[in-house]
């Protein structure tokens, strides 16, 4: 009997690894090896044509004196700080509105989600068009209420706020997740708070917010990491062949700089070192946020 069961389990193990095999190969080829090889390349000088030459920590020392690294890191951090809190705030506000929409909910949810389907390249185009300082729709709308809008796409201090503003157009996924989280809050809790005389704000602050803190922190983490890696919209709008006229330093996000070093200047070794720093930053952000999560997030029963 035990022999038969042992054989069965061996068969299971073999089948399991057969099913698993695409990922096992893929993990080694497209994840493990690239991470190790990037770490190695970061210690070399490599232009794709000639073999990598080992230069020790030179790339890392060069990063310390490279003004563009500081610029790109600063730009990216500013963009994350400008975009993520607003994305979450507006998503939550719209999710709260949607929750009260009754039967029209599906219709409005569609309206809020549709922009998320737009290809990021087209969003980059829209940045240039809608946020154009002279004739863009945004400044025209602002002028109706007497505000003289800035040159969002050409005045350096306004470039990142413009991109952050545009990012508010694609918060459909956040809205759906927060709406689902709100639906999971047991109604009795609100009723109990209401009976106890809590105001709307009191109920929101002490019932709703703690109950959806899990998804909220999840989104904060995912959106922060995404902000640190944002590329396409800003690259489309401010970089690329033929676009040498703009002062585009204000839109130089970190991944754009890595991409330029790797594939436009063919400084693969230096780009690898830059990528390793990004890796470190993402790990620190993740570790930091999960420490916060453990401290502040409330999990309701064994629901999750």
């Amino acid at each position, binding site marked *: 009997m035990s022999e038969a069961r042992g054989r069965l389990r061996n068969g299971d193990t073999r089948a399991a690894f057969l099913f698993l095999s695409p990922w096992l190969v893929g993990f080694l080829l497209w*994840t493990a090896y690239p991470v190790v090889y990037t770490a190695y390349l970061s210690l070399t000088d490599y232009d*794709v044509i000639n073999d990598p030459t080992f230069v020790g920590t030179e790339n890392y020392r060069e990063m310390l004196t490279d003004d563009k690294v500081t610029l790109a890191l600063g730009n990216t951090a500013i963009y994350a700080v400008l975009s993520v809190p607003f994305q979450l705030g507006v998503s939550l506000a719209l999710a709260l509105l949607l929750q009260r929409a009754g039967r029209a909910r599906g219709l409005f949810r569609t309206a809020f989600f549709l922009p998320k389907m737009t290809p990021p390249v087209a969003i980059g185009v829209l940045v240039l068009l809608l946020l154009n300082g002279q004739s863009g729709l945004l400044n025209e709308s602002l002028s109706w209420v007497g505000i003289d809008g800035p040159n969002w796409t050409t005045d350096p201090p306004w470039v990142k706020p413009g991109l952050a503003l545009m990012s508010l157009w694609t918060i459909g996924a956040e809205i759906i997740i927060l709406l689902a989280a709100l639906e999971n809050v047991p109604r009795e809790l609100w009723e109990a708070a209401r009976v106890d005389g809590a105001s709307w704000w009191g109920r929101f602050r002490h019932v709703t917010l703690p109950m959806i803190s899990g998804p909220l922190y999840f989104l904060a983490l995912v959106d922060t990491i995404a902000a640190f890696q944002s590329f396409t919209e800003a690259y489309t709008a401010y970089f690329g062949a033929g676009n040498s006229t703009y002062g585009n330093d204000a839109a130089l996000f970190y991944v754009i700089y890595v991409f330029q070093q790797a594939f436009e200047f063919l400084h693969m070794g230096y780009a690898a070192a830059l990528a390793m720093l990004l*890796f470190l930053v993402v790990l620190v952000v993740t570790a930091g946020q999960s420490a916060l999560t453990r401290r502040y997030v409330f999990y309701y029963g064994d629901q999750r």
Partner: protein
Amino acid sequence: MSAVRRWLVLLGLCAFSLVFLYPFAWLVSASLKPRSDVFDNKLIPEVVTFDNYVEVWQEAPMALWLANTLIVTVLATVTATFSSALVAWAFARYRFPGRDILFGLVLASMMIPQAVTMIPTYLIWDQLGFVGTLVPLWGGNLFGSAFYIFLLRQFFLTLPRELFDAARVDGASHWQSFWRVAVPLTRPALVVTAVFEFQAAWTDLMRPLIYLRDSSTFTIPRGLKAMLDQFGFGGEWHWELIVTASVISTVPMIVLFLVAQRQIVEGIATTGTK
């Protein structure tokens, strides 16, 4: 909730919907205007013309770009869905040595920024001689994708074990249990995966920027970027063509959402609240 407050909520939702939908309307409207009117910000064009749609077809190989995008998108979708389902099934159905560690690696690999792997990935495709072709845009999907493995495993785990024990007693092989029993029951989740990947593949710009050199191999996003580089900057050139190409690149995604709305919404809600 009082009637007044209900109306206020609806009014607020209508106002926000307008803000979210207006850029689409603006884009479509601009694509129907003659070149000189693109920036007039009028919702209803003074002169409606389809010239831009004709001209964009002549100025750029739109049909070719659409075909390339469709090829990449279909192959990426099929391969990612199938391979991720295989792997997810292994994690959901079987107990085997090292399973939890390996699944931990799946989750961990989601945290690795694309920038960290993109250089060696490029060098591998270069060694294989595929740089300049469409293969690097979908070939990686043959090996499963961490996010979809995670997503599909969640769904496979909801299937009752007894079902597969019974199938085994009836003589079903491992493959038959997967293909004949599990896959049909997981169709909604497979559709979610396919739709997510369809969107990701259709809209990707970074990989086409890295791998495609010749305009005849471009996908729609890469082509749109090329048009912007060629016609756009400075503004006095052919914004009407860029606007039109933007509409063409976006419409298939809108259709996709309207067709698969329920699956997309459910898929996103599950990933966020788990």
